[in-house]
């Protein structure tokens, strides 16, 4: 029996890094995977800037010609028009590349985040809305970093550099003016950007609080309505929304400041050019084309900086998102042994097991010892909060004992990965969650790839068929989130059908009949007894009727066994 728990070593845990570093590490590692697409986007953008420079030169020459310096030709106009078309084409291609980079960067992160949330299990006490926001909104917020920020940052260096070079060729002092103006832009932005990153994290916290609150209240809407608190709750909602607005405005106040600095530098550069060349011209300008060209180069040089400024806000949003995501994604991979095969039977041994969730609170379990053999049933009874569920949770790998040891077939359970521990067992809780799927799919969840016949057999054993017959589409009836349309007892029978289908050596039952009426309870208990035959069963219950029909009964009070009795 022991050799069934044969082990093979799993990967060692990855080391945890600290806050901001981890966030940057996550962004950098993801960017490395997109290097080719991003380089292509930057190359296309550079071509676009070169075309814009050529267009500015031609436009300057044409304007100078109109103003009496040379002959104005239709051919020049046609050349400008052609450049305009080329530029539009380049812009579309660049945009496509950037979108692809953003999409590819986000792909895969969602799966990893979900896996990390599953690995954390019920111990992660965050609200569902908050978790959903991590997997969806936070990862969405990363898009801007790859699709806009990274290419914009590269082009914000290359674009102004090229424009300054052309301006210097036309008039060295104008080149200097433009160079000073564009160099001041990142300085001004770095100054305002630091505050924006901090404020952006705060804004995300507010957004999550809002999502979490809404989902929580929607799930309990009947209680709000029955106590006639709709208006009060709407008021609280308004307060939460107002809080979000204040936080968002704080982020934007700073983010807009950096855009405003850019605007001021643009206006200053333009005015300096006008003063410089107007003065130069009154003294007899060496090159009138250069005068107009320098003026036209100001918007060309600032266009990539505008894109950079717009993306800067996205960068701090992405960094805020990455800071929240990095600890989740950097959660050390759960280590432990994997099962090579599921053993046909399991002996469960608890040896002086203690469990303490919080050092400030009394222990949940203390000095618990028992052994359950295949074919045996252990029934845990006791007042609510006595620790019955805690024992079941330990056996599900949701928590690990703080002292003592749990052995499965004589091997330390802690050596196995939690998910592997669960492969040994089938579980029926107090309230079954029905997923948005058909009843058959809900049952098949327990064993992917199960045949229809197997699912139907399980449905029969758990007496799901009895009520499914009366539903419009039988076992193929859709049941909603939270099990709409089925009563609590019916949902519970679906969970029992899962356990039948799963056919695991260990059976964990957490008050499986708590919400059933006596008639149904008796029927379900018969099914459960058949299910338990030959398996190792641990069950928590309040019901003496249930306890009477299963084997050994142990009574728990305040985390300890107080008596052990055989109820006939």
């Amino acid at each position, binding site marked *: 029996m022991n050799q069934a728990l044969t082990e093979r070593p799993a990967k060692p845990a990855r080391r945890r890094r600290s806050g901001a570093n981890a966030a940057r590490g996550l962004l950098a590692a993801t960017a490395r995977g997109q290097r080719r697409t991003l380089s292509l986007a930057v190359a296309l953008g550079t071509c676009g800037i070169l075309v814009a420079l050529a267009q500015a030169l031609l436009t300057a020459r044409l*304007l*100078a010609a109109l*103003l*009496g*310096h040379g002959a104005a030709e239709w051919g020049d*106009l046609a050349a*400008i028009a052609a450049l305009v*078309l080329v530029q539009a084409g380049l*812009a579309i291609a660049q*945009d496509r590349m950037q*979108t692809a980079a953003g*999409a590819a960067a986000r*792909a895969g992160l969602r799966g990893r985040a979900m*896996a990390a949330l*599953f690995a954390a*299990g019920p111990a992660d*006490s965050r609200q*569902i809305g908050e*978790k959903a926001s991590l*997997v969806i909104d936070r990862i969405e917020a990363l898009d801007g970093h790859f699709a806009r920020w990274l290419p914009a940052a590269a082009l914000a260096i290359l674009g102004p550099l090229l424009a300054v070079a052309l301006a210097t060729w036309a008039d060295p002092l104008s080149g200097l003016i433009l160079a000073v103006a564009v160099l001041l832009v990142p300085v001004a932005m770095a100054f305002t950007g630091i505050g924006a990153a901090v404020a952006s994290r705060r804004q995300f916290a507010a957004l999550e609080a*809002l*999502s979490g*609150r*809404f989902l929580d209240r*929607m799930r309990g809407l*009947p*209680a709000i309505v*029955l*106590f*006639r*608190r709709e*208006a009060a*709750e*709407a008021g609280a*909602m308004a307060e939460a929304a107002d809080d979000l*607005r204040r936080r968002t*405005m704080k982020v934007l106040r700073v983010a*807009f400041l950096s855009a405003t*600095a850019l*605007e001021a530098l643009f206006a200053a550069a333009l*005015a300096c050019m*006008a003063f410089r060349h107007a003065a130069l011209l009154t003294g007899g*300008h060496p090159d009138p084309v250069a005068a107009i060209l320098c003026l036209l180069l100001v918007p060309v040089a600032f266009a990539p900086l505008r894109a950079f400024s717009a993306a800067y806000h996205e960068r701090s949003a992405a960094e805020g998102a990455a800071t929240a995501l990095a600890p989740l994604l950097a959660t050390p991979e759960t280590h432990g042994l994997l099962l090579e095969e599921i053993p046909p039977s399991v002996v469960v041994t608890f040896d002086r097991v203690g469990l303490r969730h919080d050092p400030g609170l009394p222990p949940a379990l203390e000095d618990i010892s028992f052994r359950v053999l295949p074919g045996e049933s252990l029934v845990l*009874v006791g*007042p*609510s*909060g006595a620790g019955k569920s805690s024992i079941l949770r330990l056996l599900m790998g*949701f928590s690990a004992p703080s002292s003592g040891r749990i052995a499965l077939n004589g091997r330390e359970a802690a050596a196995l990965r939690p998910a592997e521990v*669960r492969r040994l067992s089938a579980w029926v809780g107090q*309230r079954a969650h029905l*997923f948005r799927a058909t009843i058959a799919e809900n049952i098949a*969840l327990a064993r992917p790839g199960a045949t229809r016949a197997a699912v139907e057999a399980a449905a029969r054993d758990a007496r799901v068929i009895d009520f499914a017959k009366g539903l419009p589409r039988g076992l193929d009836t859709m049941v*909603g*989130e939270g099990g*709409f349309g089925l009563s609590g007892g019916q949902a519970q029978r679906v969970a029992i059908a*899962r356990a039948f289908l799963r056919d695991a050596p260990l059976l964990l039952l957490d008050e499986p009949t*708590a*919400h059933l009426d*006596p008639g149904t309870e008796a029927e379900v208990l018969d099914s459960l007894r058949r299910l338990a035959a030959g398996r190792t069963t641990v069950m928590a219950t*309040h019901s003496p009727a249930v306890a009477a029909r299963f084997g050994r009964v142990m009574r728990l009070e305040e985390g300890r066994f107080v008596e052990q009795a055989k109820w006939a």
Partner: protein
Amino acid sequence: MGVMAMGTMLADLCRVLGLWRRRWPVLLLAVGVTVVSALAGLALMTLAGRAVSHEVAALSGAAAGGAGLLLLPWLRPLLIGRPGLRWGERMATHAAAFRALADTRVWFFSRLAERLPGGIGHGRAGDLLGRIVADVEALDGLYLRALVPLAAGAAVVVAAALILGAISPLLAVLVTLPLACALALPPLLAPIAARAAKGAAAAEGRLRDAVVDPLAGLEDTLANNAEATAILRVEAAAARLTAAQRGLARRNALAGAAGALLGQGALLGALGFGIAGGEGALWGAVLGAFLALAAAEPFAGLPRAGIAIATAGASARRLFLAADRPVPVPDPVATVAAPAGHALRIEGVRFAWAADRGEVFAGLDMEVPEGAHVALLGPSGAGKSSLIALLTKLAAPSAGRILIGGVDIAGLPAAAVRGKFAVLSQDARLFDDSIAANLRLAAPDADDAALFGALDRAGIGDLIRALPEGLQTRCGEGGARFSGGQVRRIALARALVCAAPILLLDEPAAGLDAAAELAFLATLETAAAGRTVLLLQHRLIGPFRPQKLFRLVAGRALPGLG
């Protein structure tokens, strides 16, 4: 996309604007700031260009020298004013938009509370979450990315048309026609982009469902080792979302390119006018060219407003679809005065949740006198939850009537009826708030002593007193920080603290162990002294001695043997 759908979008967007009515002054003021800011930008570029051009012309002898220099002092106020206006414009528009959005959120919640009082059911909690958070945020695009830039663009076009029209009507047409086309692009592009936007929004909703469902049933997912299946489902939904977003981005890029082309078209028009024209064309062309150059930047992004309109339209449709469901039991137009008494009488009630599902009640008759303690017994699925829904006007009977204090509840507003009941339903949920806040849901003005009184009667007062934070302890989502039995007792305390005259208890002792159940039922009679109690149980145990007993059998209540 048909004319019908376009009309719907327009109607939806107008309705959104209507919801913002209270914020119109702020929204319009912000538009005003934006228009001034856009005109300042136009003036800056044009003035600088004019000054330099003038001197270039003077050099070739086409104009008198020095006139351009006279224009330069005008640059100074613009130099200072334009950046300040730009910041003010953005702050004003965003602040106004967020205020409007906060109103929308609250409106949406109130509508749903009215229309889904029985809970979310098939409505998918994850999708609803997406609706209020993401869709409401998409509505800001209507104002910030469509209406505001369009207003600024229109101001620029009008200003350019007036200035250039004074020189030559043909020039005005050549320069402003492409700009006006760019202005007209958004409304024309919106219907095309709408389909893509709708697809993207729906894909995000489905992704949210794929994420929320396995997390809501976390224990069931883990216990069945269904993590891999759930992750595959999330990744498939994410891939569909990405594809939808790509389609939207492609249209966005095309629209951006079209805007850039039209902006440059205005420049080409001005230059062409200069090449073709003789005398007088010179200054017009230079002015037109610099106006076009100044307009190029704000106009390049303008056609994207079409995508913003489409996205906002799709979001508005989904919001209104959810918010416009019929109210399950509308309040009567003419209400009768609320009765003083609260004796319950059910006469020949028939009821089914849906036409294709069997009747839950087929002629239910029952009487609960004022102050009586009555038990109604029935197995799960016999209609206990349905009876609560009917009594509290979450649903209405198809035949028969329900009277409170001798008055048919059909003639009473739902709030008046619900005020008569303190309900503990089978699926009573605790909110992620403090214990005190959860209890005060039922009695907003109750003091701590009253709360502890109720908690004691529910048999959980001592445990709460022992908690380090006492009544301020947070319950966690759905009461996750407490065990199932503890959650049940707090929910029971919530029903007990409510001052309503009728206690409606659906399996109040479910989740309690046998000893606690006995203890609770023993105290129920004293706890509910003076109040009417309707106890819905699947069996009757222990010390609770109802004055009347009914059994729910085949949709009817049969007087039971006590």
